[in-house]
């Protein structure tokens, strides 16, 4: 009985072990990268508490501070790097609409490892940064939300869409082609405008206002909303040239939809050292 009690105590202590807090983001080696934020594999990674500041360099600025910090853990399998980003958020905002912003976060890493760092806010001309961006409404889409107006407004009444009228056959190529005429952003291939299989996108920037679709980094993501707020996993290609025990830098940004944050109105960190520890 004594041994059982002792074992239980040890088990409980192990379960409630406070995570190791580190002053830089440490990407710990892991054969398998967890795709879910709830995966216990994250317990092996130390946590970095990254203080956030409002974006106040370019208009429109965020004039009221919101998210104070993000809690970041990182793992790497040698070819990809995963981040779990947690932040406190009282409201789950994942329904887009007029004046309805959605929760989001982003990971920013310099395209090249060099001494002279790019500006921490979106890089600068000649010093490109890679941004992997996750959004809560995309997560809802990946989780199964449909691509109709009733998925956003359940009581919506729609008389007629021209592309659903006879003689066009449902789901036919002709119907899809006609539907695109009424969704110009989709017709033009705007990567943020259509149904999607991943809740993240890969972007590049060379300064504020220059964010653009970038080469694919094979990014994946998954976000879950819990009692405390969001917990989001973002997996992307390991930064070029980041060997074991080497450093680059990383920055994070968070948008709270309930606080009307979008685009330049965001909370962000400065550059934080990111070290790869394969163990």
């Amino acid at each position, binding site marked *: 009985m004594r041994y059982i009690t002792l074992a239980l105590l040890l088990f409980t202590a192990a379960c409630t072990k406070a995570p190791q807090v580190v002053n830089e983001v440490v990407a710990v080696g892991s054969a398998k990268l967890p795709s879910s934020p709830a995966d216990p594999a994250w317990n092996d990674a130390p946590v970095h508490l990254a203080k956030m500041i409002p974006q106040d360099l*370019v208009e429109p600025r965020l004039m009221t501070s919101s998210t104070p910090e993000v809690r970041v853990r990182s793992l790497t399998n040698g070819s990809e790097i995963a981040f779990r980003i947690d932040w406190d958020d009282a409201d789950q905002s994942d329904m887009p609409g*007029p004046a309805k912003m959605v929760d989001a976060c982003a990971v920013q890493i310099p395209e090249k490892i060099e001494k002279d760092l790019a500006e921490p806010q979106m890089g600068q001309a000649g010093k490109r940064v890679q941004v992997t961006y996750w959004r809560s*409404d995309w997560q809802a889409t990946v989780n199964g939300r449909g691509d109709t107006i009733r998925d*956003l407004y359940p009581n919506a009444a729609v008389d007629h869409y021209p592309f659903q009228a006879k003689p066009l056959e449902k789901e036919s190529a002709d119907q899809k082609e006609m539907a695109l005429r*009424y969704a110009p952003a989709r017709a033009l291939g705007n990567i943020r*405008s*259509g149904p999607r299989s991943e809740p993240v996108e890969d972007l590049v920037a060379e300064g504020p206002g220059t*964010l653009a679709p970038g080469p694919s980094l094979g990014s994946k993501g998954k976000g879950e909303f819990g009692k405390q707020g969001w917990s989001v996993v973002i997996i992307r290609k390991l930064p070029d040239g980041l060997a074991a025990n080497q450093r680059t830098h990383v920055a994070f940004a968070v948008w709270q939809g309930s606080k009307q944050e979008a685009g330049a*109105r965001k909370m962000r960190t400065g550059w934080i050292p990111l070290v790869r520890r394969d163990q």
Partner: protein
Amino acid sequence: MARVYNWQLGREMSYWYPENRPQKQFAAVFDTNKCIACQTCTLACKTTWTSGKGQEYMLWNNVETKPYGSYPLAYDLKLLDMLNGQQWNGHKYEGQTIFESAPAGERVLGWRPEQQDYAYPNVGEDDCAGQVDHGSFLSLPHMNWFFYLARICNHCTYPACLASCPRGSIYKRQEDGIVLVDQSRCRGYQECVRGCPYKKVFYNPMTGTSEKCIACFPKIEQGIQPQCFVNCIGKIRLAGFISKPEQARPDNPIDYLVHIKKVALPLFPQFGLEPNVYYIPPIHAPVSFNRQLFGPGAADAMKTYRNAMNDPDLSGLLCLFGSTENVVPHFRRQGDTVVGSNGKDELVRVPLREPVHIRPAVDPKNQLIRINCP
């Protein structure tokens, strides 16, 4: 911010970008006195451009009843309230524009409508300014009044939507001054929705981008007026191109109405955008109300319009409204006829007065008495 000249204010003002006027500027004149709010323009636009998913609530063209109508709700009153009362000194604006009164951290003074604000496109429809008491009768000016205000994007010379976009996703075409949202570049931050004082940019929740009136540019490129113009039952609209005041051509219909006769006025010029849709103000509405909507030229414009019957050039030009689907760059009056042309070929010819045909009550050939009832 740069310093630019806004002729509607009679002064320089601050704007996010330097002055860069297009080679030609799309413009329009709407005669509010002829609008019957049949909403045919609204439907013509709706069926042409905004029948897609996520566009259900969008009205790139709408017609609202003034004084109480507005779409989205109170779009005008909210901003007027935020500007908190400003002053004209004659034809010079001494108040602050939405660019000059931008709060710290913002590019323009603006606000973003909530979803509910789009839920009542016909609020105030046909409601007049006051109660019509028992025993009231019609008199001029009307003791109680309302009028219809048809609205599209103003394709402003200094667009607030364009200034608001931190990504430069909105651009003004050099060839015709039409303001467009680049649908491949927009990331749906809704800054343009917030910035446009006329609230003529709309967020599409299905594509995640913002969309707006495109002035039917594929038609304009063909020299044809937009859908909401050619379908107008009341023939209240005329599309064309406007010159700078000092370059106004008397044979350009838009220049003639705006710069020479000064009978057509911009909507809320005090906001500072130099909007390019011009309105002939309603002559039965109070001058004070027209002045708030259309600026200090309202009283003179009303007087000019009232006198149009004695001004054959003006009344002749007003007859060209809705007479052809072509954009009419030139017009001239020949006696009792007004002629529209493209500079080479005649596009349309309209009599100042339609011929009157009197049908006698007795048909002598068939020995019939004509009656008026079916």
